C-alpha cells in the first residue's frame, strides 16, 4: 500500500464519497456525522466500504468494525492508522 499524507487521505475519501453518495463538498466537514449530517444509514455503510476499498486498494471490512466510525474525522483517522500500520509492516 502506498503511504499517503493526511491531506491526501482526506481528499481521496471526500472525492469518493461525494461521487458515490451524491453529497455536496460543503457537507464534507470532519465533524460531520454520517447518519445525522450526511443522511447515510447502515446500508450505505456497506457501499462506503466498497467505495473506499476501491479508492485505497485495501480490504477494510475485516479489519475494523465499520459501525464504530461515526464521523468523517473517525474515517480519516481509521484510514490513516491503516496506512501507518501497513507502512510499518512493509519495513
Amino acid at each position, binding site marked *: 500500500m502506498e503511504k499517503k499524507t493526511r491531506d491526501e487521505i482526506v481528499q481521496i475519501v471526500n472525492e469518493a464519497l461525494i461521487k*458515490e453518495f451524491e453529497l455536496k463538498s460543503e457537507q464534507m466537514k470532519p465533524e460531520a456525522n454520517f447518519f445525522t449530517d450526511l443522511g447515510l444509514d447502515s*446500508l450505505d455503510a456497506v457501499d462506503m466500504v466498497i467505495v473506499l476499498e476501491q479508492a485505497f486498494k485495501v480490504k477494510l471490512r475485516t479489519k475494523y468494525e465499520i459501525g464504530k466510525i461515526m464521523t468523517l474525522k473517525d474515517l480519516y483517522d481509521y484510514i490513516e492508522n491503516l496506512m501507518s500500520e501497513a507502512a510499518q509492516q512493509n519495513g
Partner: protein
Amino acid sequence: MVEFFKRAYAFPFVAGTWTWLAVSGFFVYFFFCISGFKESRARSFIYFQGRVLQTAVLFVSAFHKKIIKGTPIKNPSILVANHPSTYDTFVFFDFGIKNIVYVAKNWPFQIPFYGKIIKEAGYINTEGKTADEIISQAKERLKKGLHIGIFPEGTRSGTEIGRFRSLAFKMSIETGAEIVPFAIKGLGEMLAPKQIWAKKADIEYKQLEKISPDRFCMEAGDLKMAKAVKEIIVEELNKGL
C-alpha cells in the same frame, strides 16, 4: 382555485386509504390470532388490501392510470422500482404479482396490527441487520418461490430520483436471481413525500426488461449494477408519460 378543488377532491380518499389500512388490519389481525398466522394467508390479505387501495385511491386521484406489462416473470426475482411516493408500495400488485415480500425499514413493522401481519407474511425488516443477514433471509424467501420487492433508493424521493443503494444488486449477484426493474411515473406529482394533500396526476407503471447478474460478477459489481439499473429507469422516466 382549481388547485384547491383538486386537492379538496382527493383528500377524503387519501384519508379513506389510511382508514382502510388501519380498520382492515385491525379486524384481520384478530381473525389471524384465532385461526393462526400463516405466511401465505397473510400475503393474500396484503395483496387484497393493496389492490383495493390501488384501485380506490388511484381511481379518484389519477386522471389516467396506465399499466404496461412486460415479459412474464417466471423465476423468483428481485423486483426494483423508483420510489416517488407512499402509494408505490403496492405497485407490483397491479401487475398481478402476489407471491412477493418486501425488504423494508422498521417503520411499517411498527404500524399497529398491520406490522404484525407483514412480519408474519415474511417481509424482511432491515433494522439492525447487516447486508449479509438481509441477503441470507432473502435467499430463503427466493428458495420458497417468492419474489423480493425492494426500492433501492431506500426512501421516498418525490419527483427527483435518488441514489440507488447496492443491497438489491448484491443480493442479485449472490443469489443469481434476476433483477426486474419497474418505472413509476406520476406518483411523485400526485403525492410527494411530506405532502398531506394529494393532487391529481397522470400515472404510469411500466415493467422493464429483466437484467441478469451474470455480467456484473466482478469487483464492486453490485455498485456497477446499481448504477446500470438506475440509468435504465431514469432513461424510461425521461421519456415522460
